[in-house]
């Protein structure tokens, strides 16, 4: 098992940040699967990270409580701001949530007493173990998997296809959207809280526009047809910079390029069950004919 120890010593950080990124991709998947492009996930991640970090550094709170607070705080914010904001649709929602992200960043920078301002928070205890991350990930995936089959998940789907029709079928559109938004915020907060206790340090720059775009890239790359999509997207976006280490300065350019190319050539993402089924059908048919 020595190779495993060596591997872990070198790559534990990559593997654990992979976990964070999968959670983030799943958080935006949730709102996207309900037909909303909300770009506030980086900000929710930040709110979760700061809440959790403050609790564990100042109050020595138990880690489970810290994580719960890291989920509850962004969920509460999402609930409050979601009620008026989610009335907006399409590009308006995207831009309002983008602006919300900026407001959070500015607020963090300007409340120096609490958050350390632009310098960030230092000395966060490293409480996140591999099994904590695995547990969080498994729990989230299980919840979302259950949700897809449940009434609520079907309601998400219906709203994504056609909001007006969904409303006419008796779905409470605004309440359903608010649930998706709040749940997404909680997952992003969990990712933030876990990540903060992994990296020792957090600063406002980590939760800005770039992070928001990275989260979006993961979901768009993988596709949002099922849970495998965002997971695979997060995997690629996390591992790609490791593979392209020589391009370090242009790392972000690669992300941007992925976003453009996927949108242009694979609009439904890498994991597209419909296309796969179609390809499979064509393949088997040809065999039968031959």
């Amino acid at each position, binding site marked *: 098992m020595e190779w495993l120890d060596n591997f872990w010593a070198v790559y534990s950080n990559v593997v654990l940040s992979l976990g964070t990124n999968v959670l983030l991709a799943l958080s935006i998947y949730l709102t996207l699967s309900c037909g909303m*492009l909300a770009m506030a996930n980086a900000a929710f991640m930040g709110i979760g990270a700061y809440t959790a970090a403050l609790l564990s550094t100042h109050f020595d709170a138990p880690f489970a409580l810290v994580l719960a607070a890291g989920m509850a705080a962004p969920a509460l914010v999402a609930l409050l701001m979601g009620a*008026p*904001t989610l*009335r*907006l649709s*399409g*590009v*308006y929602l*995207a*831009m*309002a949530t*983008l*602006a*919300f992200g*900026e*407001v959070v960043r*500015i*607020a963090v920078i*300007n409340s120096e007493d609490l958050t350390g301002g632009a310098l960030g928070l230092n000395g966060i205890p490293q409480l996140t173990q591999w099994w904590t991350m695995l547990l969080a990930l498994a729990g989230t995936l299980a919840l979302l998997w259950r949700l897809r089959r449940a009434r609520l998940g079907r309601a998400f789907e219906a709203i994504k296809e056609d909001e*007006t029709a969904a409303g006419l079928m008796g779905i409470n559109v605004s309440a359903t959207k608010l649930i998706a938004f709040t749940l997404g915020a909680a997952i992003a907060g969990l990712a933030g809280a876990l990540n903060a206790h992994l990296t020792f340090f957090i600063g406002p720059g980590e939760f800005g*526009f*770039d992070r928001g*775009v990275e989260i*979006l*890239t993961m979901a*768009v790359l993988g596709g949002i047809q099922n849970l495998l999509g965002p997971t695979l997207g997060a995997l690629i976006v996390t591992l790609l910079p490791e593979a392209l280490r020589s391009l370090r*300065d*242009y*790392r*972000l*350019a690669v*992300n*941007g*390029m*992925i*976003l*453009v190319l996927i*949108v*242009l050539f694979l*609009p439904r993402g890498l994991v597209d069950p419909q296309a796969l089924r179609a390809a499979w059908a064509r393949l088997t048919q040809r065999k039968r004919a031959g």
Partner: protein
Amino acid sequence: MLSQQLFNALALGCVYAVFALGFTLVFGVLGVVNLSHGAVFMVGAYCALIAVNQLGLGLPAALLLAFACAGALGLCIDVLVLRPLRARNAPHLIPMIATIGVGIVLSSLAQGLFGAANQRFDADALPGQSLSFMGLDMTALELGIIASSFGLMALLLLALQRTQLGRALRAIAESPRAAALLGIPVERLFRMTSFVASGLGGLAGTLIGLYSNALYPLMGQPILHKGIAVIILGGMGDIRGAMLAGLFLGFAEVLSVAYIGSTMRDAVAFGLLFLVLLLRPKGLFGSTQERKV
């Protein structure tokens, strides 16, 4: 003192307005929220910087070059990215996501090419004169920015209201399909709009580069966020609204720094944005529309 503040606000607001013009023009005509506009703005500023510092050109030539280069870039984005999406009839949000990617690529390339550090125009290339008038200190630069901004706005408004081309563009804004049926060369005008709008973005980049004299690869990001606030304030796609809202934001920011404190400066734009989105989603100057099924 107040009048000096107001004058500074006017110069700042003018730059916001020019930036927002291009941004809102693309939305009005192409129906795309072009989030690469901030990066195009940055590219324009760097083009002017190269023109002044390395080619030794004067400011007017540098502005022209910035317009042309940024415009050409916008044309490339339109042909390579937006047109295929139009052809596929992709929903609104898709081109927006694609332009986020384009913006990231551009700013990251600029960071690789020029480095992340601030760059400046050579001091002797900038007009140094200033003018005192009724107790106001006005630099030639600020006056130039104000004059050229108002000139551009007037030109654009005139072109849109009074020319055949402007009428064609307004027809496309109403409905590209109907415009095509009427024999308007829609695709060509889309390309032209992209060129002009990005050119305006490049000009705004140069103007703010001259005004603050600090160029850096991510300089497009704060202005992009403010531009979003401005075009929502003015009503999406509304040229006159964007101008007024740009000027308004300039005044709001400068006055808030003067009377509330500098920490709140960046929050002003977004505070306004939130309020407008919640109270008047179609913009301060827009009219409301019901969604039809």
